[in-house]
């Protein structure tokens, strides 16, 4: 497996941002009401992530270390604005469903986390592949969560009726269902023994109220533990 394919595998499976690293919980919980919303949110985030990784990787020797976070935030915010305008212009249905969540991609842990943990240390080609891998991993996880909630909540999948309406449990389509389905995923992963970092995250001080710095703190902590 060459190092570009390794990045894809890493993002999709080994360090899947949602399922294994437990990053970006806010959008995961909020937009997983239907499978199609998961796909659109995942792909929008992936677009921002690929370009932010590319730009940050190109500029990695130019941005002074002390002001790197504000610089990253400006780059990411500009890309999010571009994405938002494109969605508004060409995909009005997506805009209607996800409108208020698109601007919040700026503070998604995954994006600043990858900038800090990967893009600012590696060449542009690898950074793009890292963005694609992580973006796909996020999209797959969101779509999975969205599908489960859509099937349980309304008996449909991508709008197609696959279970009788009478079998639907409405609560799964509503806000509490988001917490329940993610809890279910983690229970299953715990039971079959896939290691997530969630225990560490929840049992320690978590992100301390800071969504975007989440990833960095975890990487710091991981680094420290390895140093020990």
């Amino acid at each position, binding site marked *: 497996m060459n190092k570009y394919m390794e990045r894809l595998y890493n993002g999709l499976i080994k360090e899947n941002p949602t399922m294994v690293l437990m990053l970006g919980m*806010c959008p995961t919980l909020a937009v997983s009401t239907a499978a199609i919303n998961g796909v659109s949110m995942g792909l929008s985030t992936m677009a921002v992530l690929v370009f932010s990784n590319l730009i940050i990787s190109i500029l990695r020797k130019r941005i002074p270390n002390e002001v790197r976070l504000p610089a990253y935030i400006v780059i990411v915010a500009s890309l999010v604005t571009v994405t938002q305008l494109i969605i508004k212009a060409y995909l009005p249905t997506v805009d209607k469903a996800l409108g208020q969540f698109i601007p919040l991609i700026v503070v998604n842990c995954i994006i600043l986390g990858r900038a800090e943990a990967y893009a600012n240390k590696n060449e542009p080609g690898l950074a793009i592949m890292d963005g694609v891998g992580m973006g796909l991993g996020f999209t797959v996880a969101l779509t999975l969560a969205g599908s489960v909630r859509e099937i349980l909540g309304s008996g449909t999948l991508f709008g197609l009726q696959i279970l009788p309406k009478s079998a639907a449990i409405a609560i799964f389509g509503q806000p*509490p269902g988001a917490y329940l389905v993610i809890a279910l995923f983690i229970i299953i992963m715990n039971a079959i023994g896939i290691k997530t970092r969630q225990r560490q995250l929840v049992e320690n001080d978590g992100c301390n109220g800071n969504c975007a710095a989440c990833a960095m703190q975890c990487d710091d902590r991981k680094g420290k533990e390895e140093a020990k």
Partner: protein
Amino acid sequence: MNTSLILIIVSSALVHNVLLNRFWGVCSFLGVSKQMKASASLGVAVIFVMTIASAVASLLNDYILVPFHLEFMQTIVFILVIAALVQIVEMFLKKSSPAIYKALGIYLPLITTNCAVLGIAQLNASSGYTFIESVVAGFSSAVGYTLAIVLLAGIRSRIREEDLPAPLRGAPIVLISAALMSIAFMGFSALSF
């Protein structure tokens, strides 16, 4: 106080609770709620920052972005303003009231990128709220945030002593508690007349 303000308060603190209904700032909800004291301090810090951020974002939006047709800059402007604002508030508190700074100090810089603060600023702008309405919405959303995180911290302090099946330990039981709280808060939706 007129009825529309009361509606905004009820809607942002209870019906559309940022943590249990909108899912903004969930990272901190799951992480910090481990300790009651930390949750309460974070809650107060969020009230502080979110109220001021809503006020400043609303002024900027009404007097600079809208008159010059720069609404598309909202995301960039808001996130930078929030980041700068938190820094200023921190420096100001450090000088003027060391007691408050000591209590909130470590939480203030961390709130910069809490999605709830940016989310509320965006929501105020897109709902076309006036200055007063924005401040009230910001403040009451933050009160809702504090209420939810303190309640969850209370529940978690009880859960800790329970003997749970192994796969449920850690995050799953916290998420299930949050789901039950969210169901309880759905009862408030009857108030949104």
